[in-house]
């Protein structure tokens, strides 16, 4: 599998750019999508992320990484931020920002966990909680380019209220199958009892290994490692499983 990345002048790729908030929308009670205008944005691939830098008036500065949620769209970059308990950056981004506010972005970063529309093989996306964000960028990129590679998404959340991008995922694009999996609380009448993702859950959505699928798994570290182990036990080729782990900062 080829590595994918956007080459470019380093001075461009790794410098901080000013991003202005031009819109926001709630995805869930704890997650917001922020829409930024970033003049000179060099473009990105689905799956990549950005570093975000915030500086306070006294000069204190801190950084976090967030996956890009949107397909490439000129100077527009969307991030979906999940509020983390005691998170100094996530609470500002989910509660404190107003349209017109500015912060700094650097990137795009990451050449490994990417999906490109030219990839013809079937794709399995497995999301744990806020791990859905970079996978949503892949779904949106597929839609934008009209790519025909068949996609399946298995989206694990605690409760139905935790599902991000619900409107889009409830009416999936042709060739995209979406399965929700609940770990704490399921909707009324849901056949599967709430609980952690298991081998049979994955077997129900996995592409046959002979089809040469690529699998992207994203979420908290424990979720990703558990899922990857289950996939390999099911006979999936470990070299075709790409993972991205979120640390305690949530991004």
């Amino acid at each position, binding site marked *: 599998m080829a590595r994918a990345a*956007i*080459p470019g002048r*380093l001075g461009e790729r*790794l410098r901080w750019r000013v991003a202005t908030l031009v819109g926001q929308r709630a995805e869930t009670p704890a997650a917001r999508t922020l829409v930024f205008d970033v003049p000179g944005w060099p473009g990105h691939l689905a799956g990549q992320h950005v570093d975000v*830098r915030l500086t306070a008036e006294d000069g*204190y500065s801190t950084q976090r990484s967030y996956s890009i949620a949107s397909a490439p769209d000129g100077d527009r970059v969307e991030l979906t931020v999940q509020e983390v308990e005691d998170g100094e950056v996530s609470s500002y981004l989910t509660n404190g920002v107003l349209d017109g*506010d*500015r912060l700094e972005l650097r990137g795009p970063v990451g050449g490994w966990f990417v999906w490109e529309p030219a990839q013809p093989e079937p794709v399995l996306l497995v999301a744990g909680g806020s791990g859905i964000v970079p996978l949503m960028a892949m779904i949106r990129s597929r839609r934008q380019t009209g790519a025909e590679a068949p996609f399946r998404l298995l989206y694990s959340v605690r409760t139905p209220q935790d599902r991000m991008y619900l409107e889009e995922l409830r009416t999936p694009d042709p060739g995209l199958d979406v399965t929700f999996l609940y770990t704490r609380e399921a909707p009324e009448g849901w056949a599967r009892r709430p609980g952690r993702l298991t081998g049979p859950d994955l077997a129900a959505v996995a592409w046959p290994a002979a089809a040469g699928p690529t699998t992207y798994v994203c979420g908290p570290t424990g979720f990703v490692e558990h899922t990857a182990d289950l996939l390999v036990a099911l006979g999936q080729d470990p070299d075709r499983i790409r993972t991205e782990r979120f640390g305690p900062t949530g991004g």
Partner: protein
Amino acid sequence: MAIVSRGFHGRRQSSEHRLPPGQYEVTDFPVLSAGPTPRVSRDVWEFTVVTETGDRHSWNWRQLLALPSERPVVDLHCVTKWSKFDTTWQGVSMDTLLGDVETAAEYALVHSYGGYTTNLPLADLLDGKAWIAYGYGGADLPPEHGGPARLLVPHLYLWKSAKWVRGIQLLMQDEPGFWESAGYHDYGDPWREQRYQGD
């Protein structure tokens, strides 16, 4: 210059902890080596950046000195546990040297005259974090401390600040250098005490 984000206050850690865990302060400047000290004449000295596609960018001594230089004042932290505060240097920022380089690479392998190598993420060489330094303490950098020029990347343990620097290879995959392939940590953050592999 960073812009200020309205309404962001942040939460501070307590400041003025300048000694990373496990370190002690020294006032001399110990010399540690893995081999004989190269004597590189400025007439033959060259610094080269090689990208993953084989593109090369080179500077000879005259060209290096013609670039804008800075005088950073930094603390040094050696993995052998000594730290030295407020060292004064003169050198060219890696941002100046790498700004026009076209690459998709995420890793760097630094090479020295004499064969020493060390690896680190490319991002750790940028954004004001690293220099090619040719002056120390107001004078020319002496050979035992890496002169004519060394890499200076003080936010990592000092073994990453390769003495007698010769060039940097930009790579798509991380490749361990001299000490990293013999047990030392691939990254080497003194504040997280990343001395050995597995720390």
